[in-house]
């Protein structure tokens, strides 16, 4: 059989193109690798096995293709839809699905835990006949069960957001509002307040809870220390905004210090001097 060399030209061109692309890929790999490692470090590993059952193939490809944030957003909107229907199993499944898809936004963890700890007990009690019918002990039991789920969920979040102050705040609120455990709530607020980017209110609430627990001396010592760290006036050079000054509420903290000085009978000479 006679071969026509000219006819092989397109195939040869194609082959050369593929070879050139592969060589380019190999040559630029060392240049691209650091950037890729940076991007990868920002993307927690996808646990596909736990997701594949819940998602269709198309969504899975979307996730792999780098559209995690938007897929998670979609499922969060879906979560809100089933939440509006007070559908407990579905809401719980979707909450976990959303953070499995994209654990990076703190918002999902915060709001998911709130749904679990605050809304779901309401749904369960309503389903069992309402607050007037369900005995107090049973209500308490339901609160405890849901709080345990929420606290577990929030502790899982620390795996993605180590020591995030807002997660400590969420935990504190569950202890305080659902479990009425002021001591644990205070401890969680303390942890929140100790983080570098903690909200200013965490430190104030910690002191308030200490007072509630009768630990006034501890509260006094804490507030004095806290006051020194608070911004008193805006300073663009130091990056202190009027918002921060307003949120830090230094005058209010000083006021509490004075109250505690009264309660602790601290002499004027020994009083805190800002």
């Amino acid at each position: 059989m006679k071969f026509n060399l000219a006819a092989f030209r397109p195939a040869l061109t194609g082959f050369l193109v593929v070879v050139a692309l592969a060589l380019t890929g190999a040559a630029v790999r060392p240049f691209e690798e650091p950037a890729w490692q940076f991007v990868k470090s920002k993307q927690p590993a996808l646990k596909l096995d736990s997701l594949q059952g819940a998602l269709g193939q198309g969504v899975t490809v979307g996730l792999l293709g780098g559209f995690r944030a938007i897929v998670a957003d979609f499922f969060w909107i879906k979560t809100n839809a089933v939440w509006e229907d007070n559908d407990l199993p579905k809401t719980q499944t979707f909450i976990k699905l959303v953070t499995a898809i994209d654990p990076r936004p703190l918002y999902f963890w915060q709001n998911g835990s709130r749904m679990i700890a605050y809304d779901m007990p309401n749904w369960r009690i309503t389903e069992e006949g309402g607050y007037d019918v369900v005995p107090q002990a049973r209500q308490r039991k339901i609160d405890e069960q849901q709080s345990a789920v929420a606290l577990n969920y929030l502790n899982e979040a620390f795996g993605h957001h180590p020591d995030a102050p807002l997660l400590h705040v969420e935990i504190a609120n569950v202890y305080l509002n659902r479990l009425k455990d002021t001591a644990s709530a205070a401890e969680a607020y303390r942890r929140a307040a100790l983080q570098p980017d903690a909200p200013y209110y965490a430190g104030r609430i910690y002191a308030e809870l200490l007072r509630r627990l009768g630990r006034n001396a501890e509260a006094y010592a804490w507030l004095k220390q806290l006051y020194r760290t608070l911004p008193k006036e805006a300073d663009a050079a130091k990056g202190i905004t009027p918002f921060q000054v307003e949120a830090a509420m230094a005058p209010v903290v000083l006021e509490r210090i004075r109250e505690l000085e009264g309660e602790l009978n601290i002499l004027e000479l020994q009083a805190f001097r800002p």
Partner: protein
Amino acid sequence: MNTAFPFPLSGRSVPFSLGRLGIVAGNTFLEAVRQKLFNFLLLLAVALVASAQLFREFNFGSSELKFISDFGFGAMVFFGSTLTIAATAQLFFSEIENRTALTILAKPIWRTEFIFGKFLGVFAVVGVFCALTTILLLGLLYHRETALMTANPEAFEAGRIIHYGDLVLMGVLQWLKFGVLAAFTLLIASFSNTNLYTVVMGFFVLVICHLQYLARDAYGSVASLPLRLLVQLLGYIFPNFQVFNLADQIGIGVGIDAAVFLRVAGYALIYIAVIGALAVYSFRNREI
């Protein structure tokens, strides 16, 4: 007609000219504009504003901004990729099908100038798309952030949470990624016979480039040697589009590292140059 023509064109050599390349690029851009390719931007704008309105219904608080940003960039990636592939294939094949390629290439012009001119025209079209979408997104975010700061000041203790400069850099990175995609589509068009084939292959390449990282991450765990080599080869042939995906979480809370940005931008430019050169090589062998 004036027979004593005032400029002698004969006897000159014809060096490669950026001017001619620019003329082809300008004409390609003009064609896109007059074909009303930008009209769908209006639709996109309406969709973005409408979805932003939808997020307000959910009362997401300051996280509403994350949703706007995610959907904005999602729309930019989705519509931008579609626009890049469709516009490249259309603007190339309109030249072939309408035989205008014949009239242009019968002039003293290099095929390199023609291909890179086409590329630059499409790149400009996609650039305008990215710029307008980014500006729209920034405007939307700024508007909502201002409103949320008034309504919900404790979430903004440290001032604005959106890094607007980083969002602009993200827009630039998306544009560069579309540049690589346009070059790839042009490479396919340079040997393909139909517009449809080019578009289908363009999307195929888009998906592979987005999933390329799976091949390079997985090849070590593939047991059979031939399959492992094939997977590794795939990882080298296609560029990694995930490396441009700094959009997740960037702009809200997390900043872009300048060194990473420059590296990714350089990566895109290298690929544009190489794939563009391959498109020229393939097109030079094409019989028109």
